[in-house]
């Protein structure tokens, strides 16, 4: 059984999935403060009635602080219980919330957009765009008939109003984990931040 956790968007999720990808239990946390969210997740993990032998973590990209806090908890569990950690990109987790073949997944990265394009089993690199760059990319690649999913397209909806946006499952879900985990890694696994800190970028 696997414990899975996502903390890359404003909705944290955590759950237990068995070896047949069935969800045994799950929780979605929407508290405003990141600390409250992670403590609610810790409380949830504390009282789990299941023994898990590995962990799945959303490695990002997404909110830096959320990712770090999720990783702090997961890496510590892996460190103490000596169990492996598997990783999944947040964009892939969101992509598998829909069954469409042609999907554009987008995560709000604090005023910028992390974006990935999926065509059946193929997927593009992860891009880190400004809103203008994202709009130009969509136009250049003629992606108008794709399904757009993820919080980026909702948070900046006024810029993407002419797109086909899936506004239901715009955050990583426990259901998607079994489809996109890679690994195993040990507790040395780190988040995929997708970009340098602002200070580093300015220095560069």
């Amino acid at each position: 059984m696997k414990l899975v956790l996502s903390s890359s968007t404003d909705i944290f999720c955590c759950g237990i999935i068995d070896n047949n990808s069935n969800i045994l239990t799950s929780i979605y946390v929407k508290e405003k403060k990141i600390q409250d969210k992670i403590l609610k997740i810790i409380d949830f993990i504390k009282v789990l009635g299941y023994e898990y032998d590995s962990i799945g973590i959303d490695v990002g990209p997404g909110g830096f602080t959320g990712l770090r806090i999720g990783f702090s908890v997961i890496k510590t569990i892996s460190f103490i219980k000596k169990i492996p950690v598997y990783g999944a990109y947040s964009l892939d987790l969101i992509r598998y919330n829909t069954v469409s073949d042609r999907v554009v997944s987008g995560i709000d990265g604090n005023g910028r957009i992390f974006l990935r394009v999926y065509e059946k089993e193929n997927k593009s690199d992860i891009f880190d765009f400004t809103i203008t760059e994202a709009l130009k990319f969509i136009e250049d690649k003629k992606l108008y008939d794709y399904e757009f999913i993820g919080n980026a397209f909702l948070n900046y909806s006024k810029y993407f109003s002419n797109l086909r946006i899936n506004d239901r499952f715009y955050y990583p879900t426990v259901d998607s984990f079994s489809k996109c985990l890679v690994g195993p890694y040990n507790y040395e696994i780190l988040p995929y931040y997708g970009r340098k800190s602002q200070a580093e970028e300015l220095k560069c």
Partner: protein
Amino acid sequence: MLILGIETSCDDTGVAVVGDGYKILSNIVFSQEEHKKFSGVVPEIASRKHLEYIHNLIEKALSGANILLSDIDAVGVTVKPGLIGSLLVGLSVASTISYLTGKPLIPVNHIESHIYAASFDNNIDFPFIGLIVSGGHTLLTVWNSWVDKKIIGTTIDDSVGEAFDKVAKLLDLGYPGGPIIDKIAKGVKESSVSFPLVMLNNKEDRYNFSYSGLKTSVVYYIRNNREYNKEDVVYSFQKAAIDVLYKKTVIACKDFNINNVVIGGGVAANSYLREVFLSDKKLKTFFPSIKLCTDNGVMVAGLAYYLYKNGIVINDPKSIEPVDKILTYNDKKALRK
């Protein structure tokens, strides 16, 4: 009683195991070098590095102490003040250890632990005047026990350590400024340059400090004296910055009729500061060892022992919130009355 101490308030990741508040079984500190090129701490980089290294450091601290995690009796963690993102990494790791092992979680105040650091090498009697001098803080405090402390003075602008860093940057000396300035100033016996001693003599600032004026004096001096001697400037700046700490501490000692002084924080490693305080035979001044002046897990684990003995334990982690500042605007206002 064995306590695992975790310190991640700024750019040093510190993990240690301490027995009964005084026996140092291990002390592992990882100092992040990445900030040097920015001449200051970049919070986002600091948090990322804490997450990258903390588990390896915990492993090293446990093996250094020759124990298993299950041998630990409690976990002490810095919860304030500090960089929120950095504190959150330490707090999340400590909370998870606490819940997985069932061991108590003890919240530690960073500045209090800096003062406690002096107790590892000294027998300190209460009451004492505590002077905390670091890159983030300049505080005068009165202590009646390890769990009974009152802040009586603070800086109204920059901290003393910040002033060292800024002047070092101004003179292109490197980062962190404190050790570099200390080293250069040691080679100077006298200086023709003189900077004002910012005493804030008015009644409401009796125990308060100000360092922005001193820094501005240095700016104007080097602007108006293009052929300035760097060593002279460094020596005189350090003297002005440290002398005011000494004079204000003496005022507090007289007012409270206390002769014991404990100094903690990164600037407590400054050799001139040590010389000035130790040469005053009316005072009994205690310093941490140089190794324990900077951020470390030892001081956290040590103080956590006394906090635990006094029933200070986090029963509900939701009640603990990392805090970036030790004093709010209103606290500072109250200290100027």
